[in-house]
Structure formats: structure tokens, C-alpha cells
């Protein structure tokens, strides 16, 4: 669709920002340079756990081109605080979580390989690296624990003194007694043990930062790869103590992907900003890919035992879950809410489950911090729910589709036993449509045909649900969040009738410059190229909570709608005066304000001009100008849901999996731009397939990272994926004005259980863990041959 037209909601408008990106005109943090800038390199711990006896920087400081070598002592001297975790979780016994200190540069202990020991600032990056080799660190190596399963062992290494047995919290949710009672009357119990593999986020653009202190204004500017620059400013100001908010500008320019990993406030940008004042020059740092594997917050990493209580007809009576979650060596910015309120609250899945009880132990290990990664808690919940219901169906001899149908929530609103109140959905509709698109009933014939070719074919379902539109501020506040999760918007109409929309959301691949502009174009009846979206700069946008958790449509665009309501209301007042009509008679449609029942009217741009020249209305009653802001706080989460079907074949000779068909039927509520939504679904499925078949961060027993590059960390490639068949069902979200639910994480949440369920179907065993690599599946196929021979 052409850019110079009015773009209705639901139109597949091409992304406005793509011309800039495709022609190399994007402006990422690393593309920027400040006059006189110096380069930072971080000396990192080579050990997973060690005491720092001494750091001798004297030789390094004398190296050519070195500006400064700074350590944690220098940070402490300047009175800067450590990094924080912004969500307080309480253990079952009521005690607050055991959060160890997290200095941006280590003080006396390093706790994972890659932990920050010192920063070397020099004229060039190469000079900084040369000098880093001359910093002498006297380490006392301590015993380390990298394996989640060993972290709570009595007598093992203690990573933070405040956390005995490395336990951050022992949390619970749900009704323990009610769940026990459900198990007591169960006709069948299905149990499953799951490892949710640890993932590296791998955005295409690595993190980067430039700190620039202006001595004239005594103010800092920080360019950084952030999904939420205002939150970064708030944390750096209020907790780290870098500068008051009015003296700290944070700019997140073009950002090349985040997947959660750029939500958090890390050591490097904190140090770059601080050091720029210390050395009197702008300080720039760009993460190398190897550093990203070491230090970007990882995702997932759970060990879980789940048990499902069923009656004689396959109806779920109760669900009991015990999870151990790896937090890494420090609590990252939002880490504590991921395995708790973003996880256990989704354990009801799409099903009416009368009783649920979940315990989560969060533990420290000598590994990189773990925090939100695309889906954040909800993929872990969905994997558990969709695996155990599939296993239960097979144990009961039921069709997995029928097993799901029998347990679906069908009446709304539905209050689950784990906080969430599902507001709208039609799970049967998405299942039916997915099964039809996948030709589910034709599968046995396809399986038989594959077997004649020596291939093991399987089909797997995933009926996922997620909680998005994060989140009602009072609700998250009651659960321990340190912030509210509303969003802001400002609509600035210029005198010539074009519009700037300022949003507290941040686009780093989601296409907001198009989708948000499309909404404004449709509402105001002006061509989309007359709408610009402004984001990512704390000096331009007053405040905002950023983009993650599929919130920018449901929350960010709702704020824009609120601001547009105000713009329209004021414009109507102005139009009434100009047209000498009563305000109640003014109608606004297709970009024109008209007096009802007449042909008298004004184009939107004419009203805008009148607003600014202010000749034709009383400025004592109506202020000049046309600019309105709004803050929108959602009244509920949103609940995107759907059904994915994966069909695949395994080559038993090599263990290679080929996905031969993928059907995704999603209910995202109202869809503004289906082209962008499809892109989000495609990318999400690819990441989910990556988790299921390929990706895994591995540490050895000494806490050394084994998968530190693409030589060993496998990412999904285009050739690993089929052409997806996508379908939509639609139930409007009742809690926001547009009826939107969010689509950014659905694929990554839905895909892993669909793949593993298909593999269990193909190989005839439930004993398949992620990532299901060729070597692993070959061994499973071998065991299958042996098993069949024995039978």
C-alpha cells in the first residue's frame, strides 16, 4: 500500500522504516560518534568464582593511548550504587528475597565468567585491549557451581552471603490443600520432568553505549541500546545515583532487536556514562559478539517437575508444579518476576483447572544473569502445560486434540486459580481451524507414506495462552513491581495539519513507526506519510515504560487513542467556533469536520491552522494550539491465545529433524497491520523452533562458557523452517479501546511444545528433551529400534 494515502486499520501497510534500514541509513548507537570520544574495553573475569585480592593498574595506565583504568573502588569512591532488581518477591515464609549486591564493577568478588573487573578507556579500542592485558589481577579462585541441579546442595559454594544454599527465594502460588485434595481423588496422575534450556538472546545488533558528560550544564547524555530508555534513566538516576533525571538524557536511537535482553540496565552503559565525567571525554563501548554470549542476560533455564491429576474421563482435577529457576550470578533488572508472576500465573493454560499449586525456588549459580527473553516465563509455563497434557492424553489413549477440547475454558470471564482472569477467547475455534488447515485427519496416511521412505513422521499440537498488555499498575504493584506499567502518548498536531506522535514505547524491530502512524492516519483521516512517530529519547518523550511483553499495541496504542480522543474533542470545539455552529453539531469523519446536516465543513488541516493562528475562537475559553497527551493504565492483562500444529519427519539414520508443515492459528484480537503481525509470528516461531531443536547455552563444571560463539551455539536458519500456514481467529479484547491483545511473543511461546510433542509422536517416546539435536534424536531412534526388536 502506498505511503501517501489514508491507511485503514487492518491494511497490510508496508513498513515506513524499512527504506531507512534496507538502504543502510539506520542510525544505531555504534554508528554515532561524539567529538573527542574515547573507547572503553572491559576487563572481564576469566573465572566463574574468585576473590579479588588486588588489582594493579599501574602498568596499564602507562601504556600508550590509555586515558584511564577504573575499577569498582573508583565507582564506590564516587558514591555510585549497584545495579538493581526492580521486582520484590517474597518467599512462602514471608521473608523478602535474598538479593546480593550487584556492583557495576566488581569490588572484591567475581561471580561468573565475564563479570566486570575493570574498564580501560583509551584513544582506540585496540589500545584499550593492549592495556587490559597489562592489568594485573590477583585472584583467589573459589569453588564454583554452574549446574542448576547442584546449586542448592548443602555445603556447596556460596555465591552471595545473603543467600544461604544460593536460594534467592522459595515462592509459592495457588491452593496447596485444594490441589492435594484433587490428587487424592484422581483416577490417573501424569508426571513429567522438564528441563527448559538456557538460551542466549542474540539480537542482530549487539549492545552499545556512549556516555557524554557536559561540564557546562553538569548533565549527562547516554546513547544506549535500550528497549526502555526512560526506565534506564530512572534506574541510573534514582538507584545508581549517576545524576538527577533532569540532568540525564537517555537516547535509544535505532535499535536492532532486543528480545528482552535490552530491557535491563547493565554494567557497561552505567560505567560509560559515569566514566565520561570522570575522564572528561565521551566514552564509547560496543559489545563484541563473544562478550554478548558471556554477558547479555540469558533466558529460560528451569528444571521442573509437573504432576497432573485427572478423572476417569480425562478431565483435569489439579496441577502441581515444582520449579527450580536459575537466576545466574546476580539478579538482573526484572529477573525475579519472570519465573514467578510471568510464569506460574499462566499454568492454567487454556484449561479449566480447579486447583493449581506451584512452588518456585530461584537460585544463584556462577553463570551470567538470567532475565526476560521473548515470552519471559510464559514459554516456560506453556511448555510445561502443553507437554504434560499431551503426555496425559497418550497415557490415557486419548487423541491429544480431544483431550485439550475436553478441558478448554469455554465461558468468559474465567478466573483461574493462579491470579489471572481470562476476559475473552474461543479456544475451540482456534483448535478447529488449526486442525483443518493442518489436515489433521489425513495425518495417519502421511505417516505411513513417510515410513515407507524410512522417515519417522510426527504431529504435535500446542494450544498456548499468554498474558500480555503488561500491565495494570495497581495489580503489578501489589505483586511486588517497583514501577507502574502504564504507557504515555502525546499527539502534536502541527499548524499545517501533519502530526507527530510521541510514545513511551520503543521500537527495535516491531514496526511502530508504521503501525502507530497507521492508527493515527485512520483516525484523523490524514495520509500516513503525514504522521511521524517519535520515541526513544527522554528529552523528547516525557516518560514511558518501553517495549516488552507484547505491550506496545495493547497499552502503547491505547494511550495514543486516548490522546487522539482529546485532540478530536478540542478540534471539534475549534471547528464549531470557526464554522459558527454549536459544538454538538460538529461531526468528524474521513478527515473533515462538518456541521451536521449541512455541507459546511473544514478539513483537519484547516482546523489545525486555526488552532495555531487563533483568530477565530476565544482564547480565553479555548487555549491556542492542538497538542494533547495521555497516560493509559490497562485494567487487565490481555490474553492472546491460539493453536499451533507442527508436523515433522526424523531421519532415524542421522537424527535430523525436518519440519514439513507448520500451522499457526492465533487470536490477537484486533489486528492493525496483518503484514507486521505475520512477521512477528514468523520470527517467534523461528525462535521457538531454535529453542526446541537447536539452541542451548552450556557451561562446563568449572563455570566456563562452552557455547561462546556461533561455532557452537546453533541459531535457526531459513532452511530449517517450512513456509508457515497462518490463520487468525478474532475475539476482541474487552479491556482496551482497540480490542488488541498483542502478538510479539506468541510464536516463541507456542512453538517449543508443538515441536517436542511432534517428536514424541514420531519416535514413540516421551523422553525427549530440548534442544532435540540430531545426535540426541539419533540415540532415541536407536533405542526405539532396540526396543522394537525386544518386543
Amino acid at each position: 500500500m502506498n505511503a501517501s494515502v489514508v491507511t485503514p486499520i487492518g491494511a497490510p501497510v508496508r513498513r515506513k522504516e524499512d527504506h531507512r534500514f534496507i538502504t543502510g541509513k539506520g542510525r544505531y548507537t555504534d554508528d554515532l560518534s561524539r567529538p573527542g570520544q574515547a573507547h572503553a574495553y572491559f576487563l572481564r573475569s576469566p573465572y566463574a568464582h574468585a576473590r579479588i585480592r588486588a588489582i594493579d593498574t599501574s602498568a596499564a595506565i602507562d601504556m600508550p593511548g590509555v586515558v584511564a583504568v577504573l575499577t569498582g573502588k573508583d565507582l564506590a569512591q564516587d558514591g555510585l550504587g549497584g545495579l538493581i532488581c526492580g521486582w520484590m518477591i517474597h518467599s512462602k515464609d514471608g521473608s523478602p528475597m535474598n538479593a546480593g549486591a550487584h556492583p557495576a564493577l566488581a569490588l572484591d568478588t567475581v561471580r561468573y565468567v565475564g563479570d566486570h573487573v575493570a574498564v580501560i578507556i583509551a584513544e582506540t579500542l585496540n589500545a584499550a585491549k593492549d592495556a587490559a592485558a597489562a592489568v594485573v589481577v590477583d585472584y583467589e579462585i573459589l569453588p564454583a557451581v554452574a549446574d542448576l541441579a547442584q546449586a542448592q546442595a548443602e555445603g556447596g559454594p556460596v555465591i552471595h552471603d545473603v543467600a544461604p544454599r544460593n536460594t534467592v527465594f522459595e515462592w509459592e502460588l495457588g491452593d496447596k490443600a485444594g490441589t492435594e485434595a484433587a490428587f487424592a481423588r484422581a483416577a490417573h496422575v501424569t508426571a513429567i520432568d522438564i528441563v527448559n534450556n538456557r538460551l542466549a538472546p542474540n539480537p542482530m545488533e549487539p549492545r552499545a553505549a556512549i556516555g557524554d558528560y557536559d561540564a557546562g550544564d553538569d548533565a549527562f547524555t547516554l546513547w544506549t541500546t535500550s528497549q526502555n530508555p526512560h526506565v534506564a534513566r530512572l534506574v541510573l538516576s534514582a538507584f545508581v545515583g549517576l545524576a538527577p533525571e533532569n540532568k540525564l538524557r537517555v537516547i535509544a536511537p535505532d535499535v536492532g532487536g532486543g528480545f528482552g535482553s535490552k530491557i535491563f540496565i547493565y554494567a557497561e552503559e552505567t560505567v560509560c556514562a559515569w566514566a565520561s565525567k570522570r575522564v572528561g571525554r565521551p566514552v564509547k563501548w560496543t559489545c563484541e559478539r563473544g562478550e554478548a554470549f558471556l554477558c547479555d542476560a540469558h533466558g529460560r533455564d528451569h528444571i521442573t517437575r509437573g504432576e497432573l491429576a485427572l478423572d476417569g474421563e480425562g478431565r483435569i482435577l489439579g496441577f502441581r508444579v515444582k520449579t527450580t529457576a536459575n537466576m545466574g550470578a546476580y539478579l538482573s533488572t526484572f529477573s525475579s518476576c519472570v519465573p514467578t508472576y510471568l510464569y506460574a500465573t499462566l499454568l492454567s493454560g487454556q484449561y479449566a483447572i480447579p486447583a493449581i499449586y506451584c512452588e518456585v525456588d530461584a537460585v544463584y549459580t556462577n553463570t551470567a544473569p538470567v532475565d526476560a527473553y521473548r515470552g519471559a516465563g510464559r514459554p516456560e509455563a506453556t511448555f510445561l502445560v502443553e507437554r504434560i497434557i499431551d503426555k496425559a492424553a497418550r497415557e490415557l489413549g486419548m487423541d491429544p486434540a480431544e483431550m485439550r477440547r475436553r478441558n478448554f475454558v469455554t465461558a468468559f470471564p474465567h478466573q483461574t486459580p493462579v491470579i489471572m482472569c481470562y476476559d475473552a477467547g474461543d479456544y475451540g475455534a482456534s483448535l478447529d481451524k488449526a486442525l483443518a488447515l493442518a489436515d489433521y485427519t489425513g495425518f495417519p496416511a502421511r505417516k505411513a507414506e513417510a515410513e515407507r521412505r524410512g522417515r519417522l513422521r510426527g504431529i504435535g499440537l500446542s494450544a498456548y495462552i499468554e498474558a500480555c498488555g503488561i500491565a495494570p499498575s495497581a495489580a503489578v504493584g501489589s505483586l511486588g513491581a517497583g514501577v507502574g506499567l502504564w504507557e504515555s502518548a502525546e499527539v502534536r498536531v502541527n499548524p499545517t495539519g501533519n502530526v507527530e506522535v510521541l510514545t513511551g514505547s520503543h521500537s527495535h524491530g516491531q514496526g511502530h513507526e508504521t503501525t502507530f502512524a497507521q492508527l493515527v492516519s485512520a483516525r484523523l483521516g490524514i495520509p500516513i506519510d503525514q504522521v511521524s512517530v517519535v520515541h526513544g529519547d527522554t528529552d523528547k518523550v516525557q516518560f514511558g515504560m518501553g517495549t516488552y511483553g507484547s505491550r506496545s499495541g495493547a497499552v502503547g496504542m491505547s494511550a495514543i487513542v486516548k490522546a487522539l480522543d482529546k485532540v478530536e474533542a478540542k478540534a471539534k470545539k475549534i471547528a464549531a467556533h470557526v464554522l459558527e455552529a454549536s459544538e454538538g453539531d460538529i461531526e468528524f469523519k474521513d478527515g473533515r469536520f462538518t456541521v451536521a446536516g449541512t455541507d459546511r465543513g473544514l478539513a483537519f488541516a484547516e482546523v489545525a491552522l486555526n488552532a495555531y493562528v487563533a483568530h477565530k475562537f476565544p482564547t480565553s475559553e479555548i487555549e491556542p494550539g492542538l497538542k494533547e497527551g495521555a497516560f493509559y493504565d490497562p485494567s487487565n492483562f490481555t490474553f492472546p491465545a491460539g493453536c499451533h500444529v507442527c508436523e515433522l519427519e526424523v531421519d532415524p539414520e542421522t537424527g535430523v529433524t525436518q519440519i514439513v508443515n507448520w500451522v499457526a492459528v492465533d487470536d490477537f484480537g484486533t489486528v492493525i497491520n496483518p503484514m507486521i503481525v505475520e512477521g512477528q509470528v514468523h520470527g517467534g516461531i523461528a525462535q521457538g523452533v531454535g529453542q526446541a531443536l537447536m539452541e542451548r547455552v552450556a557451561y562446563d563444571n568449572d563455570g566456563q562458557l562452552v557455547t561462546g560463539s556461533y561455532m557452537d551455539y546453533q541459531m535457526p536458519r531459513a532452511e530449517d523452517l517450512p513456509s508457515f500456514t497462518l490463520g487468525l481467529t478474532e475475539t476482541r479484547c474487552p479491556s482496551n479501546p482497540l480490542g488488541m491483545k498483542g502478538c510479539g511473543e506468541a510464536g516463541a511461546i507456542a512453538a517449543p511444545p508443538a515441536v517436542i510433542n511432534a517428536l514424541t509422536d514420531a519416535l514413540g517416546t516421551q523422553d525427549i528433551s530440548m534442544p532435540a539435536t540430531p545426535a540426541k534424536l539419533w540415540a532415541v531412534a536407536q533405542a526405539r529400534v532396540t526396543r522394537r526388536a525386544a518386543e
Partner: protein
Amino acid sequence: MYAFDYQRPSFSQDAVSMMRSLEEPKLLAGGQTLLPTLKQRLAQPGTLVDLSRIPDLSGISVAGDVLRIGAMTRHAEVATSDLVHAHSPALAELAGMIGDPAVRNRGTIGGSLANNDPSADYPAAALALGATLVTDRRRLAASDFFRGLFETALEEDELILAVEFPKSGPAAYRKFRNPASRYAMAGVFVVRGADGVRVAVTGVGQEGVFRWKEAEAALTARFAPDALEGIALDPHTAMSDLHGDGAYRAQLTKVMARRAVEAIGG
């Protein structure tokens, strides 16, 4: 990377003399292994001697039955060469399976063979096809050239000028790629020659590329896919890592060998 000096000679004899006269010199061919190593500061040469502008090191020719490929010939040139396709189609196919387009447009046959990465593709072809490596001072049979992981018979200052491949019987290369790196996890080059079958294996051996003699004997006796049924590579001789243990690599070797035999046809 660390700072280093840089030379770009125009003649191969100049490159050799630089290797003798300079402090800690290192030859730079396509750089597909060396440059990442330098970037990670895992090597610190005194001078890089760049071979890319020595005209007589590049090019493909056929004289009689012998295919001659200059040491600095890029993988992409080998993969698309009519001469190579006519003389040794399996070699062209192998070159087209190395890395990705960027690697194939920079990497060279001489650089790959001199590096002797245990997961590289060219060593399997050189060994199976009975190639001869022509250096500035001698001719080395491939069977004498490879000496273990990243080890070759080359002297410190010795330069490969070209690789010569004799005309062979029908051949095929089948590779199972490492899922992450795309290097060979098991690459098997099978040649059905007049004097018997040769089977060279890369990506598997703990000592690098090797000939699988048991498979050669079985296929020489009867060239058919099922001739490999009863034999197996000893898993304890195969590499084991995050991506697969010795048993898995032994299995892949057998499957790739069989698929190469199928490709040649009985």
C-alpha cells in the same frame, strides 16, 4: 587484534624470502581461519605476508590428465570452473559445499590444505583423489602431507604453489554439517578408481583426515551401498564434543559413505 606489519609481495619467491628474513612472519591466504584468530587476539604475528597479489598462485589449468589448481584459487572459482567440472566433478561439488558464499569467495584451496583443520573439506578430497601438493621446493603426496590436527609436512617457510589432481574414476563427497558451525561433522569422499576404492573421512578423526581402510576393502570387493552393512568405524577413534559423541560420528561416517556410494552408483 594485535598490531602487526604487513607485506604484499608480487612474486612467490619474494614471499618465501620474507618468510625467512622477517620476525615471526605468517602467510595470509584467504584468511578465513587466520583473520578470526587475529581478531580474537589468539595469534600475534610480526608480519602478515599477504599472498593475494601473486598472479601465478591463482588459476586452474589442465595438462594431460592432470588438473592443476593454484594455491590461492578461491573455493568459488573451483566450484564454478568448467575445467574442474569436466575433470573432477566431485571436487567442484565439494568446493561448493564449503562454508557460505562469503567464505567461498575468500577462502583458498592452498590455505585450507596448509591449515589442515580436522573438519575442513579439501583434505578429504586431496587424500582420496591422491593429490600432489606442489611447493616452492618439492612435490608432496597428499598421503605424506597431512600429519595430524592442524599439522602438515610443510616447513615453516615453505609455500604451497599449486595442487595437482590426477584423473580419477567416479567420485562423490557427502557431508553432514555441524549444526552450528556448518563445518564437516562427518565428510566422506569416495573414489572408485581402477586400482580400487578410496574412502577419505574428515571431521571425524582425532588425528584429522584419514582413509577408512575397512570401507575401502569392502567397497573394492563389491561396490554397492550395502557393502558397508557389516562394518563400523571404531567410535573411540572419533572426535567427541558438544555436538555428538564418537558413536554418533562413527554412525554419520557410515551413512555419509553409503550416500556417497549411492551417488556414484553401483
